[in-house]
C-alpha cells in the first residue's frame, strides 16, 4: 500500500466482510499533539481475543474461501503505524463489532502520505450501498478546530430506489466529500 487512504479502504473492506451495517470512519489530524489518527468502528460480527491476535499475524486470514491462508492488510498497517512512532489497536467482542485505531506521528519523516481520501470514501460508499457510513474529519491546529460530518443514511433515504452510482448522485457525493476534505485541510496531509 502506497498511502494511508489505501490502507483505510482495506480496513473498511474488512468491516464490510464482517457483515457490518454501520461503519464509522474518523480521521483526526492534530498538529498540536502531532498525530494523525484513523479510527474505524463497525457493528459487524466482531472477533474473540484469539482472532484479534491472529489478525495482526501476517500468516492468518479470515477469508476461508481462499487456499492461501495469509492476510497482509492489518499486519502491514500495524507495521507502517509503528514504524513512524505511532500505534495500532484493535478492540472487539464477538457480536459487538470492532474498533480499529491506527495512529501516526504527523511530522514523522517516514510517515506515508494520507493520499487520495476522497477516492477511498467515495469508493467505499458507492461500492457498498447496503452499508451506512458515518464520516467525521477533524483537524486541530493551534486554537483552530475544523470539523466535517457526513452521513450516508439520510442520503439513501432521500434517494429511495435511485442507485448511488446514478451519474448525478456520484457527482453529489464527490462534491460533498471534497468540500469536507477542503474544510478540514486534509488534501495534502
Amino acid at each position: 500500500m502506497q498511502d494511508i487512504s489505501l490502507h483505510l479502504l482495506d480496513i473498511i473492506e474488512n468491516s464490510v466482510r464482517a457483515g457490518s451495517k454501520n461503519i464509522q470512519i474518523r480521521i483526526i489530524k492534530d498538529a498540536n499533539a502531532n498525530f494523525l489518527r484513523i479510527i474505524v468502528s463497525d457493528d459487524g460480527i466482531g472477533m474473540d481475543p484469539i482472532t484479534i491476535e491472529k489478525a495482526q499475524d501476517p500468516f492468518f486470514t479470515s477469508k476461508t474461501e481462499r487456499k492461501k491462508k495469509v492476510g497482509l492488510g492489518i499486519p502491514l498497517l500495524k507495521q507502517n503505524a509503528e514504524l513512524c512512532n505511532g500505534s495500532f489497536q484493535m478492540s472487539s467482542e464477538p457480536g459487538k463489532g470492532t474498533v480499529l485505531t491506527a495512529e501516526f506521528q504527523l511530522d514523522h519523516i517516514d510517515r506515508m502520505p494520507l493520499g487520495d481520501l476522497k477516492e477511498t470514501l467515495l469508493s467505499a460508499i458507492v461500492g457498498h450501498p447496503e452499508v451506512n457510513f458515518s464520516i467525521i474529519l477533524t483537524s486541530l491546529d493551534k486554537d483552530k478546530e475544523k470539523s466535517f460530518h457526513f452521513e450516508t443514511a439520510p442520503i439513501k433515504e432521500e434517494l429511495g430506489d435511485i442507485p448511488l452510482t446514478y451519474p448525478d448522485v456520484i457527482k453529489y457525493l464527490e462534491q460533498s466529500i471534497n468540500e469536507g476534505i477542503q474544510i478540514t485541510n486534509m488534501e495534502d496531509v
Partner: protein
Amino acid sequence: MKTLADLKKIREKAQEEMKLRDGKVRIKIVVGMGTSGIAMGAREVMKTFLEEISNRNLTDVLVTQTGEKGLSSMEPVVDVIEEGKPKVTYGNMTPEKARRVVVEHIVNGRVVSDYVVATGD
C-alpha cells in the same frame, strides 16, 4: 454546500428517467476490492468507472465492489454482469483498460476479449 434539497432534485429527475426504461439496471460492474486488488490499483479502476459513468451520463449502469475471489495474480479484477448473458471477468485492469471496457463493452455491447480472464459463473 450540498444539501438534501439538491438530492431531491436529482431523485425527481432520475425517477422520470427510470419511468421511461422500466427502472431496470441494464448492466452491473463489480470491482474486486480485496487487499491485493487494492495494492494493485483497484481503487483507481473503480474511480475510472465512476468518472466514465458520470461523464457519459450512463444512468442504467450499477457499480459495486466485492472482496477477493482467488484471482490474486490477475488483480485488479472486474466482473461485468448483464441480464441473460454469461458473466465476463476482466483481469489485470488499469484505468486505461477500464475506459476501453466502458466504451466497447458497456456502451457498445462488444466484449473486450483482450482483457477477459474468465466467463460464465
